[in-house]
Protein backbone atom coordinates (compact mmCIF):
# COMPACT_ATOMS: atom_id res chain seq x y z
CA UNK A 1 0.00 0.00 0.00
CA UNK A 2 1.44 3.33 -1.05
CA UNK A 3 0.37 6.44 0.75
CA UNK A 4 1.78 9.73 -0.37
CA UNK A 5 0.58 13.26 0.05
CA UNK A 6 1.78 16.21 -1.93
CA UNK A 7 2.72 19.14 0.24
CA UNK A 8 2.43 22.37 -1.73
CA UNK A 9 5.21 24.09 0.16
CA UNK A 10 5.49 27.81 0.72
CA UNK A 11 8.73 27.79 -1.25
CA UNK A 12 7.04 26.30 -4.27
CA UNK A 13 4.19 28.79 -4.03
CA UNK A 14 6.69 31.61 -3.79
CA UNK A 15 8.45 30.39 -6.91
CA UNK A 16 5.19 30.24 -8.86
CA UNK A 17 4.21 33.72 -7.67
CA UNK A 18 7.63 34.98 -8.71
CA UNK A 19 6.98 33.68 -12.22
CA UNK A 20 3.53 35.24 -12.09
CA UNK A 21 5.04 38.57 -11.03
CA UNK A 22 7.66 38.50 -13.78
CA UNK A 23 4.90 37.60 -16.25
CA UNK A 24 2.72 40.53 -15.18
CA UNK A 25 5.71 42.86 -15.36
CA UNK A 26 6.68 41.68 -18.85
CA UNK A 27 3.06 41.93 -19.92
CA UNK A 28 2.73 45.53 -18.75
CA UNK A 29 6.05 46.52 -20.32
CA UNK A 30 4.98 44.68 -23.47
CA UNK A 31 1.66 46.55 -23.59
CA UNK A 32 3.46 49.88 -23.29
CA UNK A 33 5.83 48.86 -26.06
CA UNK A 34 2.91 47.96 -28.29
CA UNK A 35 1.12 51.20 -27.43
CA UNK A 36 4.13 53.24 -28.46
CA UNK A 37 5.05 50.98 -31.31
CA UNK A 38 4.16 53.45 -34.08
CA UNK A 39 0.62 52.33 -34.66
CA UNK A 40 -1.64 55.21 -33.71
CA UNK A 41 -3.36 54.19 -30.53
CA UNK A 42 -6.76 55.49 -29.60
CA UNK A 43 -7.26 57.43 -26.43
CA UNK A 44 -9.14 55.46 -23.83
CA UNK A 45 -7.88 52.22 -25.24
CA UNK A 46 -11.21 50.45 -25.50
CA UNK A 47 -11.79 47.92 -28.19
CA UNK A 48 -13.34 49.74 -31.11
CA UNK A 49 -16.30 48.37 -32.98
CA UNK A 50 -15.18 47.10 -36.32
CA UNK A 51 -11.62 46.27 -35.45
CA UNK A 52 -10.30 47.56 -38.76
CA UNK A 53 -8.03 50.18 -37.28
CA UNK A 54 -5.39 48.54 -35.12
CA UNK A 55 -5.22 49.38 -31.50
CA UNK A 56 -3.18 47.77 -28.80
CA UNK A 57 -6.16 46.35 -26.95
CA UNK A 58 -6.81 44.04 -29.84
CA UNK A 59 -3.41 42.46 -29.39
CA UNK A 60 -4.16 41.94 -25.70
CA UNK A 61 -7.46 40.27 -26.54
CA UNK A 62 -5.81 38.05 -29.11
CA UNK A 63 -3.20 36.99 -26.60
CA UNK A 64 -5.88 36.31 -24.07
CA UNK A 65 -7.67 34.15 -26.61
CA UNK A 66 -4.53 32.19 -27.54
CA UNK A 67 -3.85 31.37 -23.90
CA UNK A 68 -7.49 30.67 -23.14
CA UNK A 69 -7.74 28.12 -25.93
CA UNK A 70 -4.36 26.57 -25.16
CA UNK A 71 -4.73 26.18 -21.41
CA UNK A 72 -8.34 25.06 -21.67
CA UNK A 73 -6.96 22.41 -24.00
CA UNK A 74 -4.36 21.32 -21.44
CA UNK A 75 -7.06 21.10 -18.77
CA UNK A 76 -9.43 19.02 -20.85
CA UNK A 77 -6.55 16.82 -22.02
CA UNK A 78 -5.90 16.02 -18.37
CA UNK A 79 -9.44 14.66 -18.11
CA UNK A 80 -9.08 12.95 -21.49
CA UNK A 81 -5.92 11.18 -20.36
CA UNK A 82 -7.64 9.95 -17.19
CA UNK A 83 -10.65 8.79 -19.21
CA UNK A 84 -8.49 6.85 -21.66
CA UNK A 85 -6.68 5.11 -18.80
CA UNK A 86 -9.96 3.93 -17.26
CA UNK A 87 -11.61 2.91 -20.51
CA UNK A 88 -8.58 0.93 -21.62
CA UNK A 89 -8.28 -0.43 -18.06
CA UNK A 90 -4.65 0.57 -18.09
CA UNK A 91 -2.46 -0.45 -15.19
CA UNK A 92 0.81 1.26 -15.93
CA UNK A 93 -0.51 4.75 -15.22
CA UNK A 94 -2.34 4.00 -11.97
CA UNK A 95 0.39 5.58 -9.84
CA UNK A 96 0.38 8.91 -11.66
CA UNK A 97 -3.35 9.23 -12.38
CA UNK A 98 -3.80 12.06 -9.87
CA UNK A 99 -1.58 14.40 -11.84
CA UNK A 100 -3.65 14.65 -15.04
CA UNK A 101 -6.71 14.57 -12.80
CA UNK A 102 -5.62 17.81 -11.18
CA UNK A 103 -5.57 19.61 -14.55
CA UNK A 104 -9.36 19.47 -14.77
CA UNK A 105 -9.73 22.09 -12.05
CA UNK A 106 -8.71 24.71 -14.58
CA UNK A 107 -11.84 24.04 -16.64
CA UNK A 108 -14.26 26.38 -14.82
CA UNK A 109 -11.66 29.16 -14.78
CA UNK A 110 -10.85 28.66 -18.44
CA UNK A 111 -14.54 28.53 -19.32
CA UNK A 112 -15.41 31.77 -17.55
CA UNK A 113 -12.36 33.54 -18.98
CA UNK A 114 -13.15 32.35 -22.48
CA UNK A 115 -16.81 33.28 -22.32
CA UNK A 116 -15.97 36.71 -20.90
CA UNK A 117 -13.30 37.30 -23.53
CA UNK A 118 -15.71 36.33 -26.26
CA UNK A 119 -18.53 38.53 -24.97
CA UNK A 120 -16.29 41.55 -24.54
CA UNK A 121 -13.96 41.27 -27.49
CA UNK A 122 -15.74 39.22 -30.15
CA UNK A 123 -15.36 41.91 -32.80
CA UNK A 124 -11.61 42.03 -32.24
CA UNK A 125 -11.26 38.28 -32.57
CA UNK A 126 -13.88 37.03 -35.00
CA UNK A 127 -14.57 38.62 -38.33
CA UNK A 128 -17.92 36.83 -38.54
CA UNK A 129 -19.36 38.76 -35.59
CA UNK A 130 -19.78 41.93 -37.66
CA UNK A 131 -23.45 42.31 -38.49
CA UNK A 132 -22.83 44.27 -41.67
CA UNK A 133 -21.57 41.06 -43.29
CA UNK A 134 -25.10 39.68 -43.32
CA UNK A 135 -26.98 42.70 -44.71
CA UNK A 136 -27.96 41.71 -48.18
CA UNK A 137 -27.20 44.49 -50.63
CA UNK A 138 -25.02 46.23 -48.07
CA UNK A 139 -21.50 47.35 -48.93
CA UNK A 140 -19.91 44.70 -46.75
CA UNK A 141 -22.31 41.86 -47.54
CA UNK A 142 -20.35 38.60 -47.69
CA UNK A 143 -22.12 35.78 -49.42
CA UNK A 144 -19.85 33.02 -48.12
CA UNK A 145 -20.07 34.08 -44.48
CA UNK A 146 -23.80 34.66 -44.94
CA UNK A 147 -24.04 31.01 -45.94
CA UNK A 148 -22.36 29.96 -42.70
CA UNK A 149 -24.45 32.14 -40.38
CA UNK A 150 -26.64 29.25 -39.20
CA UNK A 151 -23.61 27.68 -37.58
CA UNK A 152 -23.13 30.76 -35.39
CA UNK A 153 -26.54 32.40 -35.01
CA UNK A 154 -29.12 29.63 -35.09
CA UNK A 155 -32.02 29.95 -34.19
CA UNK A 156 -31.80 33.71 -34.85
CA UNK A 157 -29.91 33.31 -38.10
CA UNK A 158 -32.54 35.16 -40.13
CA UNK A 159 -31.55 38.37 -38.38
CA UNK A 160 -28.14 37.70 -36.83
CA UNK A 161 -27.74 39.63 -33.63
CA UNK A 162 -26.38 37.42 -30.88
CA UNK A 163 -24.57 34.14 -31.72
CA UNK A 164 -26.78 31.93 -29.56
CA UNK A 165 -25.72 28.63 -31.08
CA UNK A 166 -22.04 29.49 -30.77
CA UNK A 167 -22.22 30.62 -27.14
CA UNK A 168 -24.49 27.70 -26.25
CA UNK A 169 -21.93 25.27 -27.63
CA UNK A 170 -19.20 26.90 -25.59
CA UNK A 171 -21.26 26.72 -22.41
CA UNK A 172 -22.36 23.13 -23.04
CA UNK A 173 -18.83 21.92 -23.81
CA UNK A 174 -17.36 23.45 -20.69
CA UNK A 175 -20.35 22.39 -18.64
CA UNK A 176 -20.29 18.74 -19.71
CA UNK A 177 -16.50 18.47 -19.52
CA UNK A 178 -16.49 19.87 -16.02
CA UNK A 179 -19.49 17.84 -14.90
CA UNK A 180 -17.93 14.56 -16.06
CA UNK A 181 -14.60 15.60 -14.59
CA UNK A 182 -16.08 16.27 -11.16
CA UNK A 183 -18.00 12.99 -11.34
CA UNK A 184 -14.81 11.05 -12.11
CA UNK A 185 -12.91 12.95 -9.43
CA UNK A 186 -15.61 12.23 -6.86
CA UNK A 187 -15.46 8.50 -7.56
CA UNK A 188 -11.68 8.58 -7.42
CA UNK A 189 -11.70 10.21 -3.99
CA UNK A 190 -14.38 7.78 -2.81
CA UNK A 191 -12.15 4.93 -3.95
CA UNK A 192 -9.44 6.23 -1.61
CA UNK A 193 -11.80 5.84 1.32
CA UNK A 194 -13.61 2.63 0.45
CA UNK A 195 -11.40 0.50 -1.80
CA UNK A 196 -12.75 -2.32 -3.90
CA UNK A 197 -13.61 -2.10 -7.56
CA UNK A 198 -17.03 -0.40 -7.51
CA UNK A 199 -15.66 3.07 -8.09
CA UNK A 200 -13.29 1.78 -10.73
CA UNK A 201 -16.23 0.38 -12.68
CA UNK A 202 -18.18 3.60 -12.28
CA UNK A 203 -15.19 5.58 -13.52
CA UNK A 204 -15.00 3.26 -16.52
CA UNK A 205 -18.58 4.19 -17.44
CA UNK A 206 -18.13 7.93 -16.82
CA UNK A 207 -14.91 7.89 -18.82
CA UNK A 208 -16.58 6.16 -21.75
CA UNK A 209 -19.28 8.84 -21.79
CA UNK A 210 -16.62 11.52 -21.62
CA UNK A 211 -14.67 10.03 -24.53
CA UNK A 212 -17.75 9.88 -26.76
CA UNK A 213 -18.62 13.45 -25.91
CA UNK A 214 -15.04 14.63 -26.29
CA UNK A 215 -14.71 12.99 -29.69
CA UNK A 216 -17.34 15.38 -31.02
CA UNK A 217 -16.76 18.39 -28.81
CA UNK A 218 -12.98 18.55 -29.36
CA UNK A 219 -13.51 18.89 -33.10
CA UNK A 220 -16.38 21.35 -32.85
CA UNK A 221 -14.53 23.48 -30.31
CA UNK A 222 -11.57 23.60 -32.68
CA UNK A 223 -13.83 24.92 -35.46
CA UNK A 224 -15.53 27.36 -33.11
CA UNK A 225 -12.64 28.78 -31.20
CA UNK A 226 -9.85 28.64 -33.77
CA UNK A 227 -10.94 27.88 -37.32
CA UNK A 228 -13.82 30.37 -37.39
CA UNK A 229 -11.26 33.17 -37.05
CA UNK A 230 -10.40 32.65 -40.71
CA UNK A 231 -14.07 32.58 -41.54
CA UNK A 232 -13.85 31.99 -45.29
CA UNK A 233 -11.25 29.31 -44.99
CA UNK A 234 -11.87 25.78 -43.82
CA UNK A 235 -9.96 22.57 -43.43
CA UNK A 236 -11.45 19.17 -42.72
CA UNK A 237 -8.29 18.25 -40.80
CA UNK A 238 -8.64 21.11 -38.38
CA UNK A 239 -10.40 19.35 -35.53
CA UNK A 240 -7.72 16.70 -35.45
CA UNK A 241 -5.01 19.27 -35.82
CA UNK A 242 -6.07 21.24 -32.76
CA UNK A 243 -6.69 18.05 -30.81
CA UNK A 244 -3.23 16.71 -31.70
CA UNK A 245 -1.62 19.93 -30.55
CA UNK A 246 -3.52 19.91 -27.26
CA UNK A 247 -2.89 16.23 -26.68
CA UNK A 248 0.86 16.22 -27.16
CA UNK A 249 1.23 19.39 -25.11
CA UNK A 250 -0.87 17.85 -22.35
CA UNK A 251 1.19 14.66 -22.40
CA UNK A 252 4.37 16.72 -22.18
CA UNK A 253 2.94 18.63 -19.22
CA UNK A 254 1.94 15.41 -17.42
CA UNK A 255 5.41 13.98 -18.00
CA UNK A 256 7.10 17.18 -16.91
CA UNK A 257 5.14 17.39 -13.67
CA UNK A 258 5.82 13.71 -12.90
CA UNK A 259 9.53 14.27 -13.46
CA UNK A 260 9.58 17.41 -11.32
CA UNK A 261 7.64 15.68 -8.53
CA UNK A 262 10.16 12.85 -8.58
CA UNK A 263 12.92 15.42 -8.35
CA UNK A 264 11.43 16.82 -5.18
CA UNK A 265 11.20 13.40 -3.58
CA UNK A 266 7.67 12.30 -4.45
CA UNK A 267 6.55 9.31 -6.54
CA UNK A 268 9.74 7.37 -5.95
CA UNK A 269 7.89 4.15 -6.87
CA UNK A 270 7.36 5.41 -10.44
CA UNK A 271 9.96 3.37 -12.25
CA UNK A 272 11.81 4.02 -15.47
CA UNK A 273 9.33 1.90 -17.44
CA UNK A 274 6.51 4.30 -16.57
CA UNK A 275 8.71 7.21 -17.61
CA UNK A 276 9.50 5.29 -20.78
CA UNK A 277 5.79 4.98 -21.55
CA UNK A 278 5.21 8.67 -20.93
CA UNK A 279 8.20 9.49 -23.11
CA UNK A 280 6.88 7.21 -25.84
CA UNK A 281 3.56 9.03 -25.67
CA UNK A 282 5.27 12.40 -26.11
CA UNK A 283 7.48 11.06 -28.91
CA UNK A 284 4.69 9.28 -30.78
CA UNK A 285 2.20 12.13 -30.59
CA UNK A 286 4.81 14.65 -31.67
CA UNK A 287 5.02 12.59 -34.83
CA UNK A 288 1.23 12.31 -34.93
CA UNK A 289 0.91 16.09 -34.74
CA UNK A 290 3.41 16.45 -37.58
CA UNK A 291 1.51 13.89 -39.62
CA UNK A 292 -1.74 15.86 -39.20
CA UNK A 293 0.03 19.15 -39.81
CA UNK A 294 1.62 17.87 -42.97
CA UNK A 295 -1.53 16.16 -44.24
CA UNK A 296 -3.31 19.48 -44.02
CA UNK A 297 -0.43 21.37 -45.60
CA UNK A 298 0.29 18.97 -48.45
CA UNK A 299 -3.26 18.81 -49.78
CA UNK A 300 -3.62 22.57 -49.75
CA UNK A 301 -0.17 23.03 -51.28
CA UNK A 302 -0.75 20.51 -54.02
CA UNK A 303 -4.33 21.42 -54.93
CA UNK A 304 -3.30 25.08 -55.02
CA UNK A 305 -6.83 26.51 -54.76
CA UNK A 306 -6.63 30.19 -53.79
CA UNK A 307 -9.32 30.14 -51.11
CA UNK A 308 -7.43 27.35 -49.38
CA UNK A 309 -3.83 28.47 -49.91
CA UNK A 310 -4.59 31.89 -48.42
CA UNK A 311 -4.16 30.37 -44.97
CA UNK A 312 -0.55 29.46 -45.68
CA UNK A 313 0.12 32.52 -47.83
CA UNK A 314 -0.80 34.69 -44.84
CA UNK A 315 1.76 32.86 -42.76
CA UNK A 316 4.57 32.10 -45.19
CA UNK A 317 4.76 35.35 -47.14
CA UNK A 318 4.80 37.44 -44.00
CA UNK A 319 8.07 38.53 -42.43
CA UNK A 320 6.36 38.36 -39.06
CA UNK A 321 4.97 34.85 -39.22
CA UNK A 322 7.25 32.95 -41.59
CA UNK A 323 10.04 32.55 -38.99
CA UNK A 324 7.48 31.39 -36.40
CA UNK A 325 6.13 28.94 -38.95
CA UNK A 326 9.48 27.18 -39.32
CA UNK A 327 10.47 27.45 -35.67
CA UNK A 328 7.13 25.79 -34.88
CA UNK A 329 8.07 22.80 -37.03
CA UNK A 330 11.57 22.57 -35.57
CA UNK A 331 10.39 22.74 -31.96
CA UNK A 332 7.46 20.40 -32.37
CA UNK A 333 8.82 17.85 -34.78
CA UNK A 334 12.54 17.74 -35.49
CA UNK A 335 13.62 18.41 -31.95
CA UNK A 336 11.48 15.83 -30.09
CA UNK A 337 11.86 13.36 -32.96
CA UNK A 338 15.64 13.34 -32.83
CA UNK A 339 16.07 13.75 -29.07
CA UNK A 340 13.46 11.24 -27.90
CA UNK A 341 14.27 8.62 -30.52
CA UNK A 342 16.52 6.45 -28.38
CA UNK A 343 15.23 4.29 -25.59
CA UNK A 344 17.64 5.80 -23.07
CA UNK A 345 16.39 9.35 -23.59
CA UNK A 346 12.80 8.33 -22.84
CA UNK A 347 13.85 6.55 -19.66
CA UNK A 348 16.02 9.28 -18.20
CA UNK A 349 14.65 12.34 -16.52
CA UNK A 350 17.49 14.51 -17.76
CA UNK A 351 16.22 14.33 -21.35
CA UNK A 352 12.54 14.54 -20.48
CA UNK A 353 13.23 17.64 -18.44
CA UNK A 354 14.62 19.35 -21.53
CA UNK A 355 12.17 18.09 -24.14
CA UNK A 356 8.87 18.53 -22.27
CA UNK A 357 9.06 22.29 -21.59
CA UNK A 358 10.15 22.89 -25.17
CA UNK A 359 7.16 20.96 -26.49
CA UNK A 360 4.82 22.80 -24.13
CA UNK A 361 6.17 26.10 -25.42
CA UNK A 362 6.23 24.85 -29.02
CA UNK A 363 2.56 24.01 -29.03
CA UNK A 364 1.68 27.31 -27.45
CA UNK A 365 3.48 28.74 -30.47
CA UNK A 366 1.37 26.52 -32.69
CA UNK A 367 -1.77 28.16 -31.31
CA UNK A 368 -0.14 31.56 -31.70
CA UNK A 369 0.33 30.72 -35.35
CA UNK A 370 -3.26 29.54 -35.74
CA UNK A 371 -4.85 32.58 -34.11
CA UNK A 372 -2.66 35.65 -34.58
CA UNK A 373 -2.38 36.01 -38.40
CA UNK A 374 -6.15 35.80 -38.88
CA UNK A 375 -6.95 38.38 -36.21
CA UNK A 376 -4.09 40.87 -36.15
CA UNK A 377 -2.96 40.47 -39.77
CA UNK A 378 0.32 42.37 -40.18
CA UNK A 379 -0.12 44.18 -36.86
CA UNK A 380 0.81 41.10 -34.91
CA UNK A 381 4.13 40.52 -33.29
CA UNK A 382 6.02 38.39 -30.89
CA UNK A 383 7.23 40.43 -27.98
CA UNK A 384 7.21 40.82 -24.23
CA UNK A 385 3.42 40.98 -24.21
CA UNK A 386 3.17 37.45 -25.61
CA UNK A 387 5.84 36.03 -23.31
CA UNK A 388 4.41 37.82 -20.27
CA UNK A 389 0.84 36.66 -20.85
CA UNK A 390 2.03 33.08 -21.40
CA UNK A 391 3.93 33.21 -18.10
CA UNK A 392 0.89 34.57 -16.28
CA UNK A 393 -1.36 31.82 -17.62
CA UNK A 394 1.22 29.06 -17.12
CA UNK A 395 1.89 30.01 -13.50
CA UNK A 396 -1.82 30.32 -12.72
CA UNK A 397 -2.53 26.96 -14.36
CA UNK A 398 0.27 25.24 -12.46
CA UNK A 399 -0.86 26.91 -9.24
CA UNK A 400 -4.42 25.66 -9.66
CA UNK A 401 -3.24 22.16 -10.57
CA UNK A 402 -0.74 21.86 -7.72
CA UNK A 403 -3.02 23.31 -5.05
CA UNK A 404 -5.66 20.76 -6.01
CA UNK A 405 -3.03 18.04 -6.14
CA UNK A 406 -2.26 18.85 -2.52
CA UNK A 407 -5.92 18.55 -1.48
CA UNK A 408 -6.13 14.80 -2.11
CA UNK A 409 -3.60 12.00 -1.67
CA UNK A 410 -0.97 12.14 -4.42
CA UNK A 411 -1.41 8.44 -5.10
CA UNK A 412 -4.79 6.81 -5.66
CA UNK A 413 -3.91 4.24 -3.02
CA UNK A 414 -6.88 1.94 -3.61
CA UNK A 415 -6.63 1.93 -7.39
CA UNK A 416 -7.00 -1.76 -8.30
CA UNK A 417 -4.11 -1.53 -10.77
CA UNK A 418 -1.64 0.21 -8.47
CA UNK A 419 0.45 -2.92 -7.94
CA UNK A 420 0.73 -3.35 -11.69
CA UNK A 421 1.92 0.22 -12.05
CA UNK A 422 4.62 -0.31 -9.45
CA UNK A 423 5.87 -3.48 -11.15
CA UNK A 424 5.48 -2.12 -14.66
CA UNK A 425 8.27 -3.53 -16.75
CA UNK A 426 8.85 -3.02 -20.47
Amino acid sequence: MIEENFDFSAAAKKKIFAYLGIGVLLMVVGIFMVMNGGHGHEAGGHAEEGGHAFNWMQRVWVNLWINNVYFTGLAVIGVFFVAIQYVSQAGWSAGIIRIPQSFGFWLPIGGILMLATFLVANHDLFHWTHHSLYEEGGAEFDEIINGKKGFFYWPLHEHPSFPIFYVARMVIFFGVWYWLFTAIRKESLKEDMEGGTDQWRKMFRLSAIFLVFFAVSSSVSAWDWVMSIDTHWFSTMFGWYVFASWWVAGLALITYIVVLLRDSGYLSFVNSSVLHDLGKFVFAFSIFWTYIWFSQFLLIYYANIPEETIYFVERLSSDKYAPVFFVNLILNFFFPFLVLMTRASKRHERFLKIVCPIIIFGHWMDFYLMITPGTLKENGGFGLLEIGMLMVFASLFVFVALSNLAKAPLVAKNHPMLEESVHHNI
Partner: protein
Amino acid sequence: MENGKNFVVGIFDDEDILLKGIKSVRQAGVKIHEVYSPFPVHGIEDALGYNRSRLSIVAFLFGLTGTSLALIMQIGMMGVDWPMIIGGKDHIALPAFIPVTFELTVLLAAFGMVGTFLVISNLKPWAKPVQFDIRSTDDKHVMAIDLGKNKIDRAAIESALKASGASEVNEKNFD
Protein backbone atom coordinates in the same frame (compact mmCIF):
# COMPACT_ATOMS: atom_id res chain seq x y z
CA MET B 1 24.64 -25.21 -33.66
CA GLU B 2 28.04 -23.66 -33.10
CA ASN B 3 30.58 -26.04 -31.64
CA GLY B 4 28.22 -27.18 -28.87
CA LYS B 5 27.55 -30.89 -28.87
CA ASN B 6 26.80 -31.97 -25.36
CA PHE B 7 24.21 -30.17 -23.32
CA VAL B 8 22.65 -30.45 -19.92
CA VAL B 9 18.98 -29.50 -20.10
CA GLY B 10 16.99 -28.29 -17.09
CA ILE B 11 13.20 -28.31 -17.20
CA PHE B 12 11.25 -25.73 -15.18
CA ASP B 13 7.52 -25.85 -14.55
CA ASP B 14 6.89 -22.28 -13.52
CA GLU B 15 8.26 -18.93 -14.68
CA ASP B 16 8.81 -17.62 -11.16
CA ILE B 17 10.92 -20.65 -10.31
CA LEU B 18 12.66 -20.23 -13.66
CA LEU B 19 13.59 -16.60 -12.99
CA LYS B 20 14.97 -17.44 -9.54
CA GLY B 21 16.61 -20.53 -11.01
CA ILE B 22 18.42 -18.53 -13.69
CA LYS B 23 19.85 -16.24 -11.04
CA SER B 24 21.01 -19.03 -8.74
CA VAL B 25 22.46 -21.12 -11.59
CA ARG B 26 24.42 -18.13 -12.82
CA GLN B 27 25.57 -17.41 -9.28
CA ALA B 28 26.91 -20.93 -9.09
CA GLY B 29 29.20 -19.98 -11.97
CA VAL B 30 27.37 -21.88 -14.72
CA LYS B 31 27.16 -20.30 -18.17
CA ILE B 32 23.67 -20.68 -19.65
CA HIS B 33 23.52 -21.34 -23.37
CA GLU B 34 19.86 -20.38 -23.87
CA VAL B 35 16.44 -20.54 -22.23
CA TYR B 36 13.36 -21.53 -24.23
CA SER B 37 9.91 -20.56 -23.02
CA PRO B 38 6.43 -21.19 -24.41
CA PHE B 39 5.50 -17.57 -23.73
CA PRO B 40 7.36 -14.29 -23.08
CA VAL B 41 8.63 -14.06 -19.51
CA HIS B 42 9.02 -10.56 -18.06
CA GLY B 43 12.47 -9.78 -16.81
CA ILE B 44 14.14 -12.82 -18.36
CA GLU B 45 16.61 -10.73 -20.38
CA ASP B 46 17.79 -8.99 -17.24
CA ALA B 47 18.05 -12.29 -15.37
CA LEU B 48 20.11 -13.81 -18.18
CA GLY B 49 22.31 -10.70 -18.31
CA TYR B 50 21.64 -9.98 -21.96
CA ASN B 51 22.78 -6.70 -23.39
CA ARG B 52 20.28 -4.42 -25.09
CA SER B 53 19.62 -5.45 -28.66
CA ARG B 54 21.33 -3.19 -31.17
CA LEU B 55 18.56 -3.78 -33.69
CA SER B 56 17.27 -0.22 -33.19
CA ILE B 57 20.56 1.18 -34.46
CA VAL B 58 20.20 -1.00 -37.54
CA ALA B 59 16.67 0.33 -38.00
CA PHE B 60 17.88 3.92 -37.78
CA LEU B 61 20.64 3.35 -40.32
CA PHE B 62 18.36 1.56 -42.77
CA GLY B 63 15.80 4.34 -42.30
CA LEU B 64 18.43 6.95 -43.03
CA THR B 65 19.39 5.02 -46.16
CA GLY B 66 15.74 5.04 -47.23
CA THR B 67 15.41 8.79 -46.66
CA SER B 68 18.54 9.56 -48.66
CA LEU B 69 17.67 7.12 -51.42
CA ALA B 70 14.17 8.54 -51.81
CA LEU B 71 15.36 12.14 -51.93
CA ILE B 72 18.21 11.37 -54.34
CA MET B 73 15.86 9.42 -56.57
CA GLN B 74 13.16 12.08 -56.70
CA ILE B 75 15.46 15.05 -57.00
CA GLY B 76 17.47 13.24 -59.65
CA MET B 77 14.44 12.20 -61.67
CA MET B 78 12.22 15.24 -61.28
CA GLY B 79 14.82 17.94 -60.92
CA VAL B 80 17.83 16.93 -62.98
CA ASP B 81 17.23 14.08 -65.39
CA TRP B 82 13.87 15.00 -66.87
CA PRO B 83 12.45 18.23 -65.38
CA MET B 84 8.69 18.47 -65.76
CA ILE B 85 6.23 21.09 -64.65
CA ILE B 86 3.55 19.43 -62.58
CA GLY B 87 0.75 21.51 -61.13
CA GLY B 88 2.81 24.66 -61.57
CA LYS B 89 5.21 23.56 -58.86
CA ASP B 90 8.99 23.85 -58.87
CA HIS B 91 10.91 21.00 -60.42
CA ILE B 92 12.22 20.14 -56.99
CA ALA B 93 9.05 20.48 -54.93
CA LEU B 94 10.09 19.14 -51.55
CA PRO B 95 6.65 18.97 -49.88
CA ALA B 96 5.44 16.77 -52.71
CA PHE B 97 8.41 14.46 -52.22
CA ILE B 98 7.79 13.88 -48.53
CA PRO B 99 5.17 11.09 -48.79
CA VAL B 100 7.48 9.00 -50.98
CA THR B 101 10.43 9.80 -48.72
CA PHE B 102 8.43 8.75 -45.68
CA GLU B 103 7.30 5.51 -47.30
CA LEU B 104 10.78 4.53 -48.43
CA THR B 105 12.17 5.34 -45.00
CA VAL B 106 9.63 3.07 -43.35
CA LEU B 107 10.00 0.36 -45.98
CA LEU B 108 13.78 0.18 -45.77
CA ALA B 109 13.80 0.42 -41.99
CA ALA B 110 11.27 -2.42 -41.74
CA PHE B 111 12.88 -4.67 -44.34
CA GLY B 112 16.34 -3.93 -43.00
CA MET B 113 15.27 -4.77 -39.48
CA VAL B 114 13.49 -8.00 -40.42
CA GLY B 115 16.40 -9.09 -42.63
CA THR B 116 18.99 -8.31 -39.98
CA PHE B 117 16.94 -10.14 -37.38
CA LEU B 118 16.61 -13.22 -39.59
CA VAL B 119 20.34 -13.27 -40.26
CA ILE B 120 21.54 -12.77 -36.70
CA SER B 121 18.95 -15.21 -35.30
CA ASN B 122 19.91 -17.87 -37.83
CA LEU B 123 16.33 -18.12 -39.08
CA LYS B 124 17.08 -18.94 -42.70
CA PRO B 125 14.41 -21.17 -44.27
CA TRP B 126 16.76 -24.12 -44.60
CA ALA B 127 18.11 -23.85 -41.06
CA LYS B 128 17.59 -26.96 -38.97
CA PRO B 129 15.59 -26.14 -35.85
CA VAL B 130 17.35 -26.83 -32.59
CA GLN B 131 15.07 -28.70 -30.25
CA PHE B 132 16.31 -29.24 -26.71
CA ASP B 133 12.99 -30.44 -25.43
CA ILE B 134 9.78 -30.46 -27.40
CA ARG B 135 7.81 -29.48 -24.31
CA SER B 136 9.23 -25.92 -24.53
CA THR B 137 6.53 -25.39 -27.17
CA ASP B 138 3.87 -26.48 -24.73
CA ASP B 139 4.08 -25.76 -21.02
CA LYS B 140 7.70 -26.15 -19.85
CA HIS B 141 10.59 -23.77 -19.66
CA VAL B 142 13.80 -25.30 -20.93
CA MET B 143 17.26 -24.17 -19.88
CA ALA B 144 20.15 -25.41 -22.05
CA ILE B 145 23.69 -25.44 -20.70
CA ASP B 146 26.60 -26.09 -23.06
CA LEU B 147 29.06 -28.50 -21.45
CA GLY B 148 31.81 -27.49 -23.85
CA LYS B 149 31.65 -23.89 -22.71
CA ASN B 150 31.58 -24.58 -19.00
CA LYS B 151 34.63 -25.36 -16.94
CA ILE B 152 32.53 -26.88 -14.18
CA ASP B 153 31.92 -30.62 -14.46
CA ARG B 154 28.58 -32.17 -15.32
CA ALA B 155 27.72 -33.33 -11.81
CA ALA B 156 28.12 -29.84 -10.36
CA ILE B 157 25.94 -28.35 -13.09
CA GLU B 158 23.26 -30.94 -12.55
CA SER B 159 23.21 -30.40 -8.82
CA ALA B 160 23.10 -26.61 -9.33
CA LEU B 161 20.09 -27.08 -11.62
CA LYS B 162 18.33 -29.34 -9.15
CA ALA B 163 19.06 -26.95 -6.30
CA SER B 164 17.57 -24.07 -8.23
CA GLY B 165 14.23 -25.75 -8.71
CA ALA B 166 14.42 -27.66 -11.99
CA SER B 167 11.81 -30.38 -12.07
CA GLU B 168 13.93 -32.56 -14.39
CA VAL B 169 17.54 -32.56 -15.51
CA ASN B 170 18.23 -34.28 -18.84
CA GLU B 171 20.99 -34.67 -21.34
CA LYS B 172 20.96 -33.70 -24.96
CA ASN B 173 23.65 -34.65 -27.43
CA PHE B 174 23.91 -33.47 -31.01
CA ASP B 175 25.97 -35.42 -33.50
